[in-house]
């Protein structure tokens, strides 16, 4: 096994590629013919490969009235392509799963859209062929689109029935007046109802192209075979002559707390603080991640102690999006029956303002230790490795995948107190109430 690994990591040049860099056991290449990026990591003896293709297109590339288009398009890539129609077969992606039992799925986020397959290694070429075909030959007609739009509406309603999702959607729209992070990736319901194949086609042609994609190959396949097959299957694909269009909106300065509420016939009551922050993988992003862990992670955390243990609230939860631009994290509190939103808002504000180095310091080592354990757990599967790498790739630097311990070790209590002062300032917050009337 060791010998195999050694062979796989040995540097060698592959015709048709530029070797961009190798960090630890992951190598990055770029296809000379069209700029497609490739990340490769070898995991021997499993007999399994995960391929993941990530396009740099997500909700932030959508304009008003077309929210959720990136996600809708993601669904359409599981419909028949032009070659499928010629061969008179069902969608080759779906057929791949239905014939072989491979794991397949996709997801769309603020900055990216990702498609992945995990499968026994003998299907490598087939998986690549599907990705290459649907990069350029998706068919967008009413026949395929209309039933799928209903499924997306069903998905929308599934999320929107969740109080936390609904509140988060309202808060993002309140927090961002100009930047397209102001809407959820699923989009607004009315926008979904008014999509057309023409809108999808325009979006598809703008963003689905080799120079806007990274393919990851993680698993039991040697590097030479992997790169050779990728070149054979993707190498001939051409980019449009136009460049990838980008929305360059910059969010105006916030000058005061922003508030939003949702009222529903529910017995659930939520309070949520929206905290603006710099994008991933900035130092500030990791600082806020650490602070949210100190406040909310596990029964020992500051807010669990103060609010859950006293029965005032049912749960506290921190959430930080892996987006590249300035973004908004949330600190969401599920109130216990009878607890008032205003009371907990005041308590949380006071608790956070009262944080000191003495409170924070004991938590720092614990956050690092937990992060490392989580990494060890999550990195025992090629699928999970690909999922984690995806976020770093989409936000600009996949090598940060290896740096979390180093970044966290450098964080001090002083850094976190400075973050509290800057990012939790009342004038920068967005505060949401989900008010259940039952």
């Amino acid at each position, binding site marked *: 096994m060791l010998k195999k690994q050694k062979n796989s990591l040995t540097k060698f040049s592959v015709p048709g590629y530029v070797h961009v860099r190798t960090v630890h056991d992951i190598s990055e290449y770029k296809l000379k013919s069209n700029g497609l990026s490739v990340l490769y990591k070898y995991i021997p003896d499993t007999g399994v490969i995960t391929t993941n293709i990530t396009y740099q297109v997500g909700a932030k590339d959508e304009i008003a009235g077309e929210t959720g288009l990136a996600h809708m398009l993601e669904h359409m890539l599981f419909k028949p392509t032009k070659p499928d129609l010629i061969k008179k077969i069902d969608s080759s992606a779906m057929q791949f799963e239905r014939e072989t039992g491979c794991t397949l799925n996709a997801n769309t986020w603020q900055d990216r859209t990702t498609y992945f397959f995990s499968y026994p290694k003998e299907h490598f070429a087939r998986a690549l062929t599907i990705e290459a075909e649907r990069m350029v030959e998706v068919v967008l007609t009413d026949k395929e689109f209309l039933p799928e739009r209903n499924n997306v509406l*069903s998905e929308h309603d599934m999320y929107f029935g969740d109080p936390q999702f609904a509140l988060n959607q309202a808060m993002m729209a309140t927090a961002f007046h100009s930047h397209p992070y102001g809407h959820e990736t699923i989009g607004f319901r009315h926008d979904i109802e008014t999509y057309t194949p023409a809108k999808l086609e325009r979006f598809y042609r703008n963003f689905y192209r080799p120079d806007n994609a990274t393919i990851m190959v993680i698993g039991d396949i040697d590097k030479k075979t992997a790169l050779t097959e990728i070149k054979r299957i993707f190498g001939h694909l051409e980019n449009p002559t136009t460049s990838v269009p980008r929305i360059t909106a910059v969010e105006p300065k916030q000058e005061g707390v922003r508030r939003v509420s949702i009222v529903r016939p529910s017995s659930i009551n939520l309070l949520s603080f929206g905290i603006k922050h710099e994008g991933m993988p900035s130092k500030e992003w990791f600082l806020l991640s650490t602070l949210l862990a100190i406040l909310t992670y596990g029964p020992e955390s500051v807010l669990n102690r103060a609010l859950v243990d006293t029965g005032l609230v049912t749960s506290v939860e921190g959430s930080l999006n892996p987006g590249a631009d300035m973004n908004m994290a949330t600190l969401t509190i599920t109130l216990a029956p009878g607890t008032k939103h205003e009371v907990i808002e005041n308590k949380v504000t006071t608790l956070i303002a009262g944080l000191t180095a003495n409170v924070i310091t004991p938590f720092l080592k614990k956050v690092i230790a937990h992060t490392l354990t989580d990494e060890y757990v999550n990195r025992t*599967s090629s699928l999970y490795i690909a999922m984690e790498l995806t976020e770093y790739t989409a936000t600009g630097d996949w090598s940060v995948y290896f740096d979390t311990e180093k970044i966290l070790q450098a964080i001090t209590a002083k850094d976190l107190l400075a973050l509290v002062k800057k990012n939790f300032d009342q004038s920068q917050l967005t505060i949401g109430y989900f008010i259940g009337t039952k």
Partner: protein
Amino acid sequence: MQFETSTLPHITVGTHTDEKTKLFTLTLSVDIHASYTIAGNAVEYVYSEALLAGTGSLNRSQFLDKLNKTGGSLTVSFNRSILTIDLRSQIEYLTTIHQLFKALMSEPTFLPTEIARIKKNVHNDLELQKEDARGWAQRALEQTLFGSTDRRQSASITELQKNVPTVTRQQLTALHERVLAQPWIVTQSGTKAMIESTNKLLASLKAKREPDTTISAHLPKTLERRIVLIKSIPSKHNVEFSIGAPLLPTLHHPDYLPFVFGLAVLGKWGGFAGRLMSTVREKEGLTYGIYARTESVYGSEAGYWRIMTFFAPEKAKTGLTSTLREITNISQKGVTDKEMARFKAILNTQQSLLNDSLLSSLSDLHSYLSEGFTLDQVAEYKARLLNVTKAEVNEALKKYLNPDKLIISAAGPVEKIKKELIQLAKTADPKS
């Protein structure tokens, strides 16, 4: 991925050894079921948190502090009276994690102040379940199918909330004694040295007495007609459905594996391969997800089969009609040769993919060990699933899938469609 099994007194152990790993994982489960009672259910809710709320030598704060310094995790949960403890640790902290695990198993304090705190938290947690439409739909199905003392039975959330305050320290201690006395199933991964030291620890913790094997199991009730159960949860946007019926064959019954195979063809759980996903979702655009599987078949305890899906209120009638049509078709016409070949490949690949995930492999092994399988028997059982014949599958589907004798359990914004749902219950032919 290679596994070994071994046996300690009243402990079955499944192991994956890796001398290069930085991680140790352990899952321990104990079936403590004897007979369902609301009071007993309330004790289980409190126990899950109380076990982590302090030991003889460490109060809760000290325990959590010590645990969190390792970055490890210890979680405790109950599901249908099966306790599961999950442990994760980096190698370098395993000694500390062992000490903590030993302390919580051998000297939990169940202090009255902690119990009072936990009762309030449990009450609050239960309050949230009142709006869990998916959970309600499945619970209502189980409440209708199973007898009052069966492990699948459950009280209403409000009844449970009423019982939580009555939980006593004595009840928690008695439950803990039962946890120590009943057989343990353990799966773990780590280096050989870690496994050996953990096995010694487990053997020292296990109560040295014969387990109590009295389990109050009931055959599920038989259904003579279609039944509709409805719960209004107006804050939701979709109506959640659990559709199902009793399943009498248990794991080793000759009909069981053919039925499992056939149900996968109908609605393989996850992915897009099942007929329900192909038709109700892909072709008709009626739902985002629709899946089928057997549920809660424990050893000799019969369970049920279930379809899980959701529809927008205005599509509920059409969606249910399509679902019932698919049940009728597969029950009456069976699966095709092509589907047999396809699903053999699919189920075979699913086994291959387990090699990619340590945690999934361990979880898979744990479920088989819980049912008393040896490693050889696991391999043989999985091979049998891949060798079922079309005739066996179709016979099983005909026997156990009857669209006229099932429960349709619905929860969500149902006010405007109640009449339609009730009407559907009376309709014998879903096409009409």
